[in-house]
């Protein structure tokens, strides 16, 4: 199976591990992530205002290019996934945005939200299947207590993202279980890490991240996995205060598949 793949800026710089291990694991799992040619930054945050068009264009270009190749579009970074998936929904459901964007872009065929946007985790869950994944595990992570950290962007708003139950998700826990480790459910796993607040209001972000780490360690998790570079950053700069380490889910995957 071949997918169009949108990496996003951070994966080429500060979050190279997230991508590296994802690509290696994909090889073992038997699917191909074809990086798009000349992709552009998604803009990091979804433009929430109804009157913003320009900020949605780069996502539509990405989507239209995936459509041209006849592929589903796969993302790795939660933020990119959030932005592209929501812009795709706008193109599908909001006529005024659709018309304006298509007029502006002037691509050969109007884009109407045809592409299916999948997060790497969704590929694992829905296209490969966690049962199948479990069979391919070479080094089961037996005995490790790992907490899933979902953050905001994968889950909310549920109406558009449709990733999992936004208040009580289970995808990453099932993923952890498939790798042979013990998933730890803790109540803060869907709370916000502080996001971009860490730039302007470091104390607040630190506060928010600490609550998450504290909650995870209270429930006896030794590690936390996440899909978002910014979540990882926010959790990591506070990790010293707790004993919990933070890694990308792909690193865990590669380790279990024996390609780390």
């Amino acid at each position, binding site marked *: 199976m071949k997918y169009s793949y949108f990496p996003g*800026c951070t994966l080429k710089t500060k979050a190279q591990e997230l991508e590296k291990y994802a690509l290696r694991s994909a090889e073992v799992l038997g699917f191909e992530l074809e990086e798009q040619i000349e992709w552009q930054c998604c803009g990091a945050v979804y433009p929430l205002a*109804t*009157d913003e068009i320009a900020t949605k264009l780069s996502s539509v270009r990405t989507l239209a290019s995936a459509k041209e190749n006849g592929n589903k579009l796969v993302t790795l970074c939660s933020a990119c996934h959030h932005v592209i998936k929501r812009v795709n929904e706008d193109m599908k459901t909001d006529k005024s945005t659709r018309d304006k964007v298509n007029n502006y872009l002037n691509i050969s065929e109007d884009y109407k939200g045809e592409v299916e946007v999948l997060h790497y985790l969704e590929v694992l869950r829905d296209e490969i299947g966690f049962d199948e994944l479990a069979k391919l595990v070479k080094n089961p992570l037996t005995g490790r207590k790992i907490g899933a950290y979902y953050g905001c962007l994968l889950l909310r708003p549920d109406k558009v993202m449709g990733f999992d139950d936004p*208040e009580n998700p289970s995808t990453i826990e099932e993923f952890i279980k498939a790798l042979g480790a013990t998933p730890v459910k803790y109540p803060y796993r869907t709370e916000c890490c502080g996001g*971009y607040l860490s730039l*302007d209001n470091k104390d607040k972000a630190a506060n928010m991240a600490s609550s998450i780490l504290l909650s995870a360690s209270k429930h006896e998790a030794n590690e936390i996995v996440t899909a978002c570079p*910014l979540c990882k950053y926010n959790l990591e700069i506070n990790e010293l205060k707790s004993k919990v380490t933070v890694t990308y889910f792909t690193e865990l995957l590669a380790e279990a598949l024996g390609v780390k």
Partner: protein
Amino acid sequence: MTRVKVNPSNRDKEISRIIEISGENIYSCMQCSKCSASCPANSEMDILPHQVVRILQLGNYERIVNSQTIWNCASCFTCGARCPRDIDITKIMEAIRLTVIRNKGESRIDVDELPEKIDDKMPHQAIVSVFRKYRK
């Protein structure tokens, strides 16, 4: 405290602009305050999210744009996810921010300030986000 005149004419241009940009119906709100209770950043907010909606309903534009609340919203979407009235409060926060920063010279963050605020590990994502959220 100044006395606010409550009448429809208070829903002046700015307020309608906020409603329009957000695309949300603020009059659906019945002040259950679940948004405020859910907000992970509420400790930094001088006006809680449900109060923001109420003040918009009353039409007190000045009080909204001068609050610290909008700059402490992390756009985590928790408020909208739990709102029983199906209002996406995040969109309202964004609309208020935009009405401020779209005015010339009203950017929240200065490019010159950046170097001292970022460190080696900080992902690009954070910087791009802040530029999108805090300046035009």
